[in-house]
């Protein structure tokens, strides 16, 4: 039996694939998701329309979408930065928690005394440092002992979750509000430590979101213009070749993993400074921002500027999920759709290597 379509090796990768693949992937995910919805007795068009409506079609929904997009942008950049080197850091989740712990620590400690600007800067830096240090565990183990970074970073996610629970629920830590007796919660930060929000085009935009855009631009410049970016490209393509030409691959792995963790760490700091204003042990763990960041990075094809756009897109999906959740919009639906998007994005990568050709007489291109 001959399959009607065959794969033909591409000799070069046309530029239009950069945006065509994410679009095809997204469309594919919606179709497959629609089949899942149909199979479980839901009307896909109705569900999709409501997601669109709650995610993107009003000022209020866009404000909420940008709010959800903020941590996703950071975790997306975190994943993209590491994946680009070939280091599969899936520890964005834990690095985000730890960044939040760091930012909450300095926020509580500096409290109302220091000037507002300085407090905010120190909180951002603390988030970065904590996230970077936590990620360095993964980077050092990978570069020194060649330990599988996927499993170590994932284990550290669980450990970070346990640390959060310990700090808020199971100890009398500095982060816990001593007044919260019945249900323990984090100590609230002084109002002076709250990060500003800006009104842009009628939507309120968190300071953290602007930081994410700035971080994406910095990353983009690093990739395009710096020596480090060049070396990252070589190591990703061939670690061996990189060593032969004298690139310090071990150092680069540690540095990039730390940078990747720093990005997720700012995401955690932004959760504290922009939104929660205390160390929200439960809320942080509820949202799976780190794992969704992997979807963001994959759909953006590891492009930092693309990651911001995709973060807004998936932020809208997640945000719609929050506001729609109920009996006829079960939890798990948004996660399923996100997983499908990642799934089709992975599948879509085949189009960079191959073109699909019809196997019937003549060689008419079927798609792509």
């Amino acid at each position, binding site marked *: 039996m001959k399959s009607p379509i065959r794969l033909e*090796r591409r000799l070069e990768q046309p530029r239009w694939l950069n945006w065509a693949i994410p679009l095809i992937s997204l469309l594919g995910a919606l179709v497959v998701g629609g089949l*899942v919805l149909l199979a*479980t*007795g839901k009307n896909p068009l109705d569900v999709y329309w409501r997601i669109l409506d709650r995610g993107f079609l009003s000022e209020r929904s866009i404000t909420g979408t940008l709010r959800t997009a903020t941590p996703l942008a950071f975790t997306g950049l975190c994943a993209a930065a590491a994946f680009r080197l070939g280091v*599969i850091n*899936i520890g964005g989740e834990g690095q985000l928690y730890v960044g939040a712990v760091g930012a909450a620590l300095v926020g509580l400690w500096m409290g109302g005394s220091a000037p507002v600007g300085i407090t905010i800067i120190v909180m951002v830096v603390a988030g970065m440092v904590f996230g970077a240090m936590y990620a360095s565990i993964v980077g050092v*183990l990978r570069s020194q*002992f*060649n*330990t*599988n970074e*996927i*499993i*170590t970073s*994932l*284990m*550290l996610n*669980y*450990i970070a979750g*346990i*640390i959060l*629970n*310990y700090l808020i629920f*199971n100890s009398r830590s500095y982060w816990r509000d001593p007044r919260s007796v019945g249900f323990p919660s984090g100590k609230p930060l002084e109002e002076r430590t709250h990060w500003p929000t800006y009104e842009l085009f009628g939507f309120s935009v968190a300071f953290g979101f602007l930081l994410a855009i700035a971080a994406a631009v910095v990353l983009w410049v690093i990739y395009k213009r710096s020596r480090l970016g060049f070396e990252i490209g070589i190591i990703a393509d061939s670690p061996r070749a990189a060593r032969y030409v004298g690139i310090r691959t071990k150092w680069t792995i540690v540095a990039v993993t730390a940078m990747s963790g720093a990005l997720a760490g700012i995401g955690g700091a932004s959760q504290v400074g922009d939104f929660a204003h205390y160390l929200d042990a439960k809320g942080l763990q509820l949202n*799976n921002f780190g*794992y*969704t960041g*992997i*979807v963001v990075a*994959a759909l953006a094809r590891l492009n930092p500027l693309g990651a911001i756009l995709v973060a807004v897109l998936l932020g809208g999906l997640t945000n719609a999920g929050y506001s729609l959740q109920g009996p006829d919009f*079960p*939890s*798990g*639906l*948004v*996660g*399923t759709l*996100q*997983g*499908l998007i*990642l*799934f089709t*994005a*992975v*599948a879509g*990568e*085949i189009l960079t*290597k191959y073109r699909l050709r019809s196997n019937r007489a003549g060689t008419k291109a079927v798609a792509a």
Partner: protein
Amino acid sequence: MNSNIFIVIAASAIFYGTPLFFAALGGVFTERSGVLNLGVEGMMLIGGVTGAWASLHVGGSAWFTVVAAICIAMAAGAAVAALHAFLCVTLKANQTVAGLSITIFAGAVGLSSYFANIWKVAENPVTRQIRKLDVLGLADAPIVGPLLFNHTILTYASWVMCAVASWYLFRTKIGLQLRAVGESPQTADAMGISVVKYRYIHTMLGGALAGLGGAFYSLAIVPTWVDGMTKGAGWIAIALVIFGFWRPGLTLLGAYLFGALQSLGTVLKSRSYDIPGDVLDALPFVMTIVVLVLVSTRFAHKRIGAPAALGVPYEREER
């Protein structure tokens, strides 16, 4: 005698280690064929939720229901694994990201939670559980009772499977061909072995075993459905494949070691030892990292047993 803490821990290590072993044994098969499966956690959860559904909705005698639930969970795990094989074998996608996509798609906040929600599985505790047996009436015998004669049917099945798997991998022709596919698909292909077929079958077999492990959580350990109930067991299972050097017997030992770590919290808490619960909760995860580092340093250059073509898609035209 049988309430001696070491015996209690050893017995519960076997109990908690059983699902880890199923998932890890599945990983051994999958990885021996050269496919890396990081979707184990997702497959376990899908197995868990479908098993719980079946135990609530399949009628008949208790035994029939349990057997049906196990079969359905295994079929569901295999179905999800087929998706993974499609990505990795047919589309030759990056196996790491493909596996992650499976875990995110099927995992704790994905399809397994969606199914649990629309089937209303979480609201009802599982009535038809997989219970511990009293084999030959020896469950209360000193020492050997709790260790050997007081387990679920699946634990006994896992011992049989461990032996059969070793025989299959190292003593049969198909096992030899399977290892050839994982070591050098080019050679296997030249010998006339279908690389695609072997990889599909063993990835799906791995998924079925992961689904079985998931069902053990929802039908025996907890036993009711909770979103994300495997809590990283799938990932520990992936690490166990490495600790076990891709061999069923060693994997079984590793699974019991981690079963012991997982059960330590429950056992020590029930005896009011004053150890912070969070430390015990973190122990399996910390130990996974520690053991992984140990294994990767000592055998950095000569990783015993790792299939040479693991994680590499096979493309016939690229020789």
